């Protein structure tokens, strides 16, 4: 997890309190109702348990949330991450089995891992470049600009797989979604690495400060000579890269590319995670907060699944929890609440 000493000092920590409380509440709920929630086992030098499971399952949301955080901080939003996930998976699977959609079952020559990973990620970066250029140079509202790729992207993914689910076997590639490294599932390791990279990129250079400045006051930033357009493009490309990696993890994990369902609604989870985490739309961002947000959402999803709640109500249930966390965070709402309480107390006494 990235460690930022500055966030311990000032308001940032205060902002993390409420999301942490919410996460804690959900965890407590699980401890009470799910026996062995905290159990961790080491088998063949690998870590297993509910907690590890949540982190592992949550890797895609966490990754996408990292990217979404920086985009959100520049005053933008990226709705296309789900589509980019689908494209990345579709491309990777097609590289492994180029003729599968034509009905050829044989694999042919095994594609090298570099290609299987590299090409989808390059395409993801391209998608980010497209989004960023539309926002920064053409000047389209971020929500509209990325909506284009959100809609078109999934279509492209379906064209690549011709609407089929491409299943494959490719040992080295499967390592990404299902392997273990240092006793931990690889997706968790990837998230950790990305967090470290993000921390170094944003807080050890001036990039983080510039992102916040551009988001909070574009005009003032322009007067200081900060290259707002480049910074915006970079954040969209970074976000798309995160989505691309998430796409590879998902695809490698299920050993198939499902253009219809891969990463579906993940953009909403990521946006929710960022907001719960306390990043401002255009301004201060905290990746640590977004991670807590992502964990809240993933724990919730897992809880719902293990509790056997009907999938139809899953979304409604999620929405309720998100509303609650957002409300608790809102200062205005807390004021109303405490004001009411104070008044009723005063009335009673």
């Amino acid at each position, binding site marked *: 997890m990235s460690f930022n000493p500055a966030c311990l*000092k000032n308001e940032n920590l205060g902002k993390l309190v409420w999301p942490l409380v919410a996460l804690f509440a959900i965890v407590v709920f699980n401890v009470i109702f799910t026996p062995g929630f905290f159990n961790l086992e080491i088998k063949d030098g690998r870590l297993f348990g509910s907690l590890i499971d949540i982190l592992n399952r949550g890797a895609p949301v966490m990754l996408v949330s990292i990217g979404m955080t920086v985009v959100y901080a520049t005053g933008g939003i990226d709705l296309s991450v789900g589509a980019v996930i689908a494209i990345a998976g579709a491309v990777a699977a097609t590289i492994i089995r180029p003729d599968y959609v034509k009905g050829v079952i044989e694999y042919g020559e095994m594609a090298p891992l570099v290609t299987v990973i590299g090409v989808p990620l390059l395409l993801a970066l391209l998608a980010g470049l497209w989004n960023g250029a539309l926002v920064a140079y053409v000047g389209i509202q971020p929500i509209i600009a990325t909506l284009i790729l959100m809609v078109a992207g999934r279509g492209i993914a379906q064209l690549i797989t011709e609407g089929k689910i491409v299943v494959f076997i490719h040992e080295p590639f499967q390592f990404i979604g299902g392997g273990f490294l240092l006793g931990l599932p690889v997706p968790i390791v990837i998230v950790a690495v990305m967090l470290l990279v993000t921390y170094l990129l944003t807080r050890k250079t*001036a990039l983080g*400060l510039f992102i916040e400045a551009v988001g*909070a006051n574009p005009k*003032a930033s322009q*007067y200081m000579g900060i290259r707002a357009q480049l910074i915006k493009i970079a954040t969209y490309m970074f976000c798309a890269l995160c989505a691309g990696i998430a796409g590879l993890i998902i695809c490698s994990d299920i050993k198939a590319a499902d253009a219809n369902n891969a990463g579906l609604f993940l953009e909403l989870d990521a946006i929710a995670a960022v907001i719960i985490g306390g990043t*401002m739309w255009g301004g*201060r961002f905290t990746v640590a907060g977004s991670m807590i947000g992502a964990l809240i959402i993933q724990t919730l999803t897992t809880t719902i699944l293990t509790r056997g709640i009907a999938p139809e109500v899953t979304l409604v249930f999620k929405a309720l929890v998100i509303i609650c966390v957002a409300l608790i965070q809102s200062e205005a709402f807390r004021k109303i609440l405490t004001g009411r309480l104070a008044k009723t107390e005063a009335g009673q006494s």
Partner: protein
Amino acid sequence: MPTTDAILEVRGLSKTFPGVKALQDVDFTLKKGEIHALMGQNGAGKSTLIKVITGLYKKDGGEMLLDGKPFECDSPEEAPKIGISTVYQEVNLIPNLSVAENIYLGRQPMRFGAIDWKTLNRNAAEAIKKLDLDIDVTQPVSSYSIAIQQLVAITRALDVKARILILDEPTSSLDAAETARLFDVLRKLKSEGIGIVFVTHFLGQVYDISDVITVLRNGRLVGVKSVDELPRLALIEMMLGKSADEVECVEKGAGEAGDAVDAECFLRVQGLGRRGAIRPFDMEIHKGEVLGLAGLLGSGRTEIARLLFGVDKAQEGRIFVKGQEARLTSPRKAISLGFALCPEDRKSEGIIADLTVRENIVLALQARTGIFRRLSPKKQEEIVDRYIKALDIKTSSPEQKVGDLSGGNQQKVIVARWLASNPDFLILDEPTRGIDVGAKAEIENLILHLSREGMAVLFISSELAEVIECSGRVAVLRDRVKVAELPREAINESNIMKAIAQTEGQ
């Protein structure tokens, strides 16, 4: 009741923000038909007192009486309903709405259940005439200068049927003529029995218009005196809490650096112009020289600044930087040539309210050194500490949000940012707006110091005295034309006024 004609009484008021006691046990009494000046250094608590009265902040303790009856506004929308009309320090108009809409927002004239646009615009046009303002009221307010926005905000406040009018630094970006017009209106309101609270850092204006002065220092009441019994020096002493001799004043021989005429010419401008902004003009600024820019409201001062910084593009003319012809196509280009602009509108072009004092100060310098060469925390701390001390910025810590500072202290942060970025050529557009007497001299001294080290400075201010004190040469503008340039020997108030008036006669 001690006084029968008191309309507003505040007793033992206190208000605390995290880390600051903004008001402690403050008393304040406003009488009918009185113009009451509220004075104090930056961060003394003037705006906070006003905001507590109008319900923007909740008081922590004390009581507030209106006509002897306790009152408390739950929100600032309630204040006008009980007869308190306010112009806040930070102009809070809605940029995208028209001038007319802004004036009547919330009390639009209606006709058949819809807004009556014709009446709205006609009324607005009439309302702004009271301040002798002649602008198109259907244009969005953001298209006008900060001074005009301030006048629009005042117009909005004047148009409410109020018994109490509160003006928080209404004249901070107005020139002498505009201020005089405002004062005429205030005197008329006063004769109608309206009580007026007036905040300013211009001592001259206080003695011009007010009857009573209440002085705050560090959130506490220092004293209430009628104007006649409080000479200027005594007032300064009350505000600063130290004797006036200790107050820093601008070092004489200010223009010595201005003798740099034979020094290398940094910037030469030939026939630079832009339609509707400024007629083609020539100008030269030398290394180590402070060139003052004087002129009335709307005379084209800010327009020159924007042209020279590449915010607006010139339609004609040539620019030479150190003898080389240059094209100023964007602020980035200007910055790469060593230019910097400290803009007039601190709220929308200056501060980044959510970021800390430290970040706001180092940003411009950081932007110059680049993304990958982050200033070390130690270096940042060093710069920030130096400027917090030098400009006496009142903040609980360098990590405080700039948005929570008082208006004048925010301004100091912006000035610090640009001084710290150490450019070759610094354009300062109203740098001392809203800054108190003591700190003003500090800023002027810092500017002179930097210019002596070789920085070329273009100094824009609507306060004549300041221009005279700082500049080695003064260019005078009128109606978007450069009409005169005064050499150092000729810089004095009457010459500048003459230059402004002369062309007026033509």
